[in-house]
C-alpha cells in the first residue's frame, strides 16, 4: 500500500517535472500564454477587489441614509434615556445619536447668517432628534423600511425622516456593479479555459509523433495525458502569480489618486491591494481552471490519435 503510494507519487512528480520542462522548451509560447492568462485573470479579480471595496464604501455611504426621529416635545430626560435604550435594543439598529434642541440650535447658529435670525426667536423651536444608523448587516432598502416601521410604533416619536430614494439608488448601483463583476468573472474564466485548452491542443499537435510512438509501445491515454494535465495546472499557477503581481501593481499605482478622490468626497476609506488569502484563492482557482481546461480539451484529442503503424 505504502509502496504503491510512493510509486504513484513518484509517477506524478515525474509527470509534473516533465510537463514543466516541456513549457521551458518553448519559452516564448509559454510566456505569451501566461501573460494572456494573467490579463484574463486580472480583469475579473480587479472588479472583485473594487467591488468588495465598494461594498465597504456603500456601508459608509449608507450612513448618509440614516433615519431621523423627531421626538415629541415635553418628554423628560429620564424618559428620553429609556427611549434611547429601547431603540438601541431594536434589532437592525447600529448606532444611535441623540441631538438635543440646544445642540441643534448651536449648530444652526454656527452657520453663517443664521445667528441673527435665531436672535428673533423667543424660545428654541427645535425638537429633540435621534439619528439612527442602520446596522452594517442591513443593506436592502426593504429591511431598513421594516426597521422604520418598527420604530414608528414607539409612542414618543412624533415624526420620522428617511431618505429612501438615496438608499435605493445606492443599492441599485451597487447591485449593478456586483452583477457586472460576476458576468466579467464568468466570461473571463471561460477565456482562461479556452486559452489553456487551445495551448494544450497546440502542444498535442507539436508532440503528435511522440504521442503516436508512446501509444505504440503501450502507453494509455491517461499516461500520455498526465504531463499535459500538469501543463494546464502550471499555466494556471504561473498565470495567477503574474495576475496577482499585476493587480497589486495596479492598485498601488491608482491608490494615491483614489485616496485623493475619496478625501474630496469626505470619505474615510483605505484602499488595499490583494490580501494573502485572496492571492491564494486566485492561484487556486486558476490552477483549477487550468486543470479543468486540460481535462476537457485533451481527452477527445488524444483518443483521436492512432498509434504508429
Amino acid at each position: 500500500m505504502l509502496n504503491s503510494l510512493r510509486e504513484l507519487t513518484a509517477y506524478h512528480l515525474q509527470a509534473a517535472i516533465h510537463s514543466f520542462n516541456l513549457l521551458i522548451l518553448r519559452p516564448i509560447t509559454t510566456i505569451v500564454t501566461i501573460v494572456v492568462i494573467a490579463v484574463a485573470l486580472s480583469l475579473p479579480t480587479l472588479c472583485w477587489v473594487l467591488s468588495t471595496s465598494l461594498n465597504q464604501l456603500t456601508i459608509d455611504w449608507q450612513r448618509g441614509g440614516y433615519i431621523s426621529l423627531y421626538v415629541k416635545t415635553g418628554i423628560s430626560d429620564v424618559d428620553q434615556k429609556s427611549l434611547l435604550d429601547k431603540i438601541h435594543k431594536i434589532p437592525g439598529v447600529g448606532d444611535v445619536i441623540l441631538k438635543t434642541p440646544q445642540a441643534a440650535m448651536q449648530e444652526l447658529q454656527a452657520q453663517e447668517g443664521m445667528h441673527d435670525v435665531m436672535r428673533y426667536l423667543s424660545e428654541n423651536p427645535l425638537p429633540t432628534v435621534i439619528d439612527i444608523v442602520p446596522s452594517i448587516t442591513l443593506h436592502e432598502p426593504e429591511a431598513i423600511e421594516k426597521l422604520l416601521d418598527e420604530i414608528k410604533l414607539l409612542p414618543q416619536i412624533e415624526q420620522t425622516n428617511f431618505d429612501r430614494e438615496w438608499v435605493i439608488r445606492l443599492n441599485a448601483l451597487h447591485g449593478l456593479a456586483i452583477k457586472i463583476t460576476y458576468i466579467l468573472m464568468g466570461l473571463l474564466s471561460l477565456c482562461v479555459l479556452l486559452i489553456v485548452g487551445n495551448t494544450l491542443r497546440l502542444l498535442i499537435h507539436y508532440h503528435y509523433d511522440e504521442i503516436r510512438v508512446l501509444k505504440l509501445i503501450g502507453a494509455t491515454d491517461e499516461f500520455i495525458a498526465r504531463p499535459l494535465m500538469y501543463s494546464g495546472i502550471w499555466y494556471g499557477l504561473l498565470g495567477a502569480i503574474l495576475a496577482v503581481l499585476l493587480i497589486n501593481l495596479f492598485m498601488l499605482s491608482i491608490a494615491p489618486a483614489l485616496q485623493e478622490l475619496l478625501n474630496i468626497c469626505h470619505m474615510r476609506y483605505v484602499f488595499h491591494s490583494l490580501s494573502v488569502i485572496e492571492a491564494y484563492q486566485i492561484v487556486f482557482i486558476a490552477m483549477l481552471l487550468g486543470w479543468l481546461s486540460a481535462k476537457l480539451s485533451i481527452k477527445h484529442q488524444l483518443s483521436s490519435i492512432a498509434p504508429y503503424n
Partner: protein
Amino acid sequence: MIKLEQIVKRYSGGFEALSQVSLNIEKGSMVFITGHSGAGKTTLLKLISALETPTSGRVVINNQCLNHLNKRDRAYYRSNLGIIFQMPNLLNNRSVFDNVALPLHIHGMQPLMIAKRVHAALDMVGLLDKEKLLPIYLSAGEQQRVGIARAVVHKPLLLLADEPTGNLDPMLSTGIMKLFEQFHQVGVSILIATHDLSLIAGMKHRIVMLKDGKIC
C-alpha cells in the same frame, strides 16, 4: 503462445490483406515471416500487436483473445510486448537513455530500477557509451539498436519485429539478427517479418511464407 484462427482482414475499400490465415507459434520459438511486399506480413504483426482487429477469426495470445479487448486493455497488452519497426520511431527530443526508459515509465517503475534496466539493455546492444546523446546524432544502425533496446528493456515474453533490417546494410543486418538470436536463447518468443531471404537462409528457424494474404 500465438494462435491465429481463420483470420480474415479486409480493409475498407474491399482489399483483403489476409484471408483464412491460421497459425500456431510455440512459446520460446523464433519464427520468420516472409513474402513480397503487400503479402500481408505487416498486417499479421499488427493483428498480433493489437493495433488492428481481424474482420473475422480469432487472435489468441497466451490464452488471451485480443478480439474484444477495449482500448485501454489493448494499450496495456501492448506495453508487455516488444515491438520493433523498420523505422526505429525514436523520440528525437529525448536522449537515448530516456528513449529506452519509456516502456519502464509506462510500467511505473522506480527511477533506480529504471537506470539499472536501461543500462543493461544498452549494454546488450553495445550503446552504453551513447546514452546521453540525442538519437539524431546516431547512425541508422545505432538508431535501430536503440529501438531494439527499447523493445527488450522491460523483458517482454514476445518480441515482434517488422523489417528490422530494412534500412541497414548486410553487415549491420547480420549484427541485428545475432542480437535476436541472443534474445531467443534466453527464452523470448520472436516473430520477425522480413523480405530478405538471403539474410535468414543460414538460420535454422521456422519460416512462414505469405503470398497474397495466404500462408503457402
